[in-house]
């Protein structure tokens, strides 16, 4: 009797548990109206502005509700892929030039070119060059949303103390042989515990109290060097591969490139002007805002964080001019539609609105990113000047100067190439190999990916 009561109770619990398990898996009935669009992005700072845009959109299209899903950058792409495979990917998502080639070649993105043509969507309202980056072989996978580029962030207290004016900071030159006036300024701003600066022969490299430049060695161990060596290398006339975009034969074995990488590494290894690879384990920004260094190169997407955490006035300067001119990497994000979405007509309305002048101008007022539409970018710069007390004009100047910008180097096999260059450059930055030793074999390996 006792056993059978226990039996029944256990069975009941078991059945209940199984029911609860499967209740959650029930398929949601497809609805025609109203529609909910799942829209995902990675930057938590940007949720408020996109919520504002979504609210405005909802007022225009009352039957469409936008549900914003934010996942941090480190999990964003794995989540997205898992969603593609399991059939639960978001309807519209923020896309990136590094990843969209692989999604395109696996047929996960909707080609919006026919829709752009049908609805006569203007593609010339954006910063030059951005819209084309999202086209490939006549197809289009996104409309420009925002752009980013790099500049020099510097500690104005430190530069003032060393007698370097803001005008001087914006007019520096660089070359891979002796680093130009840029290296002179870095040396001047490097101070050891005894007060010697980098120009003095008595600089004690083991007791540096203030670094002239915070290079990002871990962050630069990849195939683009977006906030590290990329802009310098391209300013020597070098280019990553054999085409402006979608190149298939790489030039990492070129002399100019090896010289640039070695110059970048030697800032720490030989000169003592920069913290080491190990010192950079938590990124350059935390060192910069803690007053450990006078300068760092960084993208505009970190401007807000840096300005809010630095306890000193932050200056922003144009990148130095290299042998063939000043060059800055111009990256642009876009929103793509997933092929597996069940409401692509509604998705297109949302994507169209996101890429419109109205939406991008609104995003600009939040002062967080620089929208692809000029009015939006100007609004953002103005908001940042007022709210953050910094002058981000150099970013806008760089983006607007014809011929100075170069696109993020879009290629196939981007993750494999990144892995190869990561190990190669880590070896250089941790002083295990020289650039010329390691780049020849690495380049051969990279080119093999295309065979």
């Amino acid at each position, binding site marked *: 009797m006792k056993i059978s009561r226990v039996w029944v109770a*256990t069975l009941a619990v078991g059945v209940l548990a199984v029911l609860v398990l499967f209740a959650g898996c029930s398929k949601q009935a497809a609805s025609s109206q109203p529609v909910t669009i799942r829209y995902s992005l990675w930057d938590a700072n940007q949720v408020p502005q996109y919520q504002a845009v979504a609210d405005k959109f909802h007022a225009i299209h009352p039957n469409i509700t936008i549900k914003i899903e934010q996942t941090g950058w480190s999990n964003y792409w794995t989540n997205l892929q898992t969603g593609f495979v399991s059939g639960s990917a978001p309807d519209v998502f923020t896309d990136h030039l590094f990843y969209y080639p692989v999604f395109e070649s696996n047929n996960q993105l909707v080609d919006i070119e026919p829709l752009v043509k049908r609805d006569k969507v203007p593609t010339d309202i954006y910063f030059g060059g951005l819209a084309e980056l999202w086209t490939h072989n006549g197809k289009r996978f996104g409309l420009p949303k925002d752009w980013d580029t790099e500049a020099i962030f510097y500690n104005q207290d430190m530069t003032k103390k060393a007698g370097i004016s803001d005008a001087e900071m914006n007019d520096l030159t660089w070359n891979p042989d002796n680093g130009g006036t840029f290296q002179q300024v870095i040396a001047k701003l490097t101070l050891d515990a005894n007060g010697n600066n980098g120009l003095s022969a008595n600089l004690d490299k083991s007791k540096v109290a203030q670094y002239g430049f915070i290079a990002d060695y871990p962050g630069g161990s990849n195939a683009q060097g977006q906030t590290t060596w990329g802009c310098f290398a391209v300013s020597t006339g070098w280019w990553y591969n054999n085409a402006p975009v979608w190149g298939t034969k790489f030039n990492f074995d070129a002399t100019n490139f090896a010289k640039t990488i070695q110059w970048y590494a030697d800032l720490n290894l030989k000169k003592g002007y920069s913290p080491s690879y190990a010192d950079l*384990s938590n990124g350059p920004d935390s060192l910069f805002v803690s007053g*450990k260094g006078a300068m760092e190169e960084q993208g505009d997407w970190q401007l807000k964080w840096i300005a809010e955490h630095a306890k000193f006035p932050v200056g922003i300067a144009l990148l130095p001019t290299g042998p063939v001119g000043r060059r800055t990497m111009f990256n642009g994000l876009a929103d793509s539609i997933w092929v597996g979405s069940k409401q692509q007509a509604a998705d297109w309305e949302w994507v169209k609105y996101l890429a419109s002048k109205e939406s991008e101008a609104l995003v600009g007022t939040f002062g967080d990113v620089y929208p692809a539409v000029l009015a939006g970018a100007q609004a953002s710069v103005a908001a940042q000047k007022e709210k953050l007390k910094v002058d981000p004009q150099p970013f806008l100047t760089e983006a607007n100067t014809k011929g100075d910008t170069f696109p993020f180097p879009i290629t196939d096999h981007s993750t494999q190439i990144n892995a190869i260059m990561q190990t190669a450059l880590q070896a250089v930055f941790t002083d295990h190999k020289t650039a010329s030793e390691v780049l020849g074999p690495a380049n051969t390996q990279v080119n093999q990916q295309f065979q």
Partner: protein
Amino acid sequence: MRVRGRAEALTAWVFISASLLGFAVFYAIPAIRNIAISFTQWNMLSPAKPVGLKNYALLLGDGVFWHAFKITFFYVLYNIPLQTVVALFLAVMMDRFAGSIVIRGVLILPYLLPPVVVGLIWLWMLNPILGIVDAFLKAVGLPAQPFLGSTAQALPTIAGMNIWEYMGFTGILFYAGLQTIPTSLYEAAQLDGAGEWKMFWRVTLPLLRPVTAFVVITSVIGSFQVFDTIAVTTTGGPVNSTRVLVWYIYEQAFQQFKMGYGAAMATFLFVLLGIVALVQFRLFRTGSSELA
């Protein structure tokens, strides 16, 4: 009698059915599926293509894989012996001097933290410029160490972080084991004139063998699978010095989209750990116990 036995057996099955279901759904079926995937080439976004034993042939010739195998082996060597000794020491100290619940609670705290949190906190503490560890070293006159940014120090540092995290928990397992040893044996030994050290070697250790076996077998298997700490700190670098097996599998499967190859490596690791566990079972003679 027989009916009662059958009813009891049935009850037992019902009770473990929930666990069994979980084991089947989350372990057994995916493991079998993994072996199936290892015979294909699959990038998740297109259908899988059967390629027979190609992935295994690739594995045999992959220098990075064998390097990962070597690195993982060294990691286990840095991690387990020291962790076991420290844990045993902690257990004996608790047993002899301070077995209060407060002390045991404090010792188990690191184990209660998620490995990702442990990794992130240590990442900040070990930064040579901003971290507290090098600040302390400099204060006592020692040179600052690069720790996670050095090819020579990164792997031992990760081992150290994990020793910190698990020594308390392992110590408590040993402590529990110590409680099973009858004090009469120690009294008898003392009457025979044995000192502390001799008692430890002749009484404590032999009688602790089942617990030691459990601790060492499970911690070696766990150590071979180290992942979280590396994922939030060094991600395999610098220059492959922390590229352990599970991290390499993750990179190949989820970052390079080579699911078939990742599955083949995972199957290899599974067989390897099975052999390691079997060898340990034999060495520790887990079928018998001096206490029985």
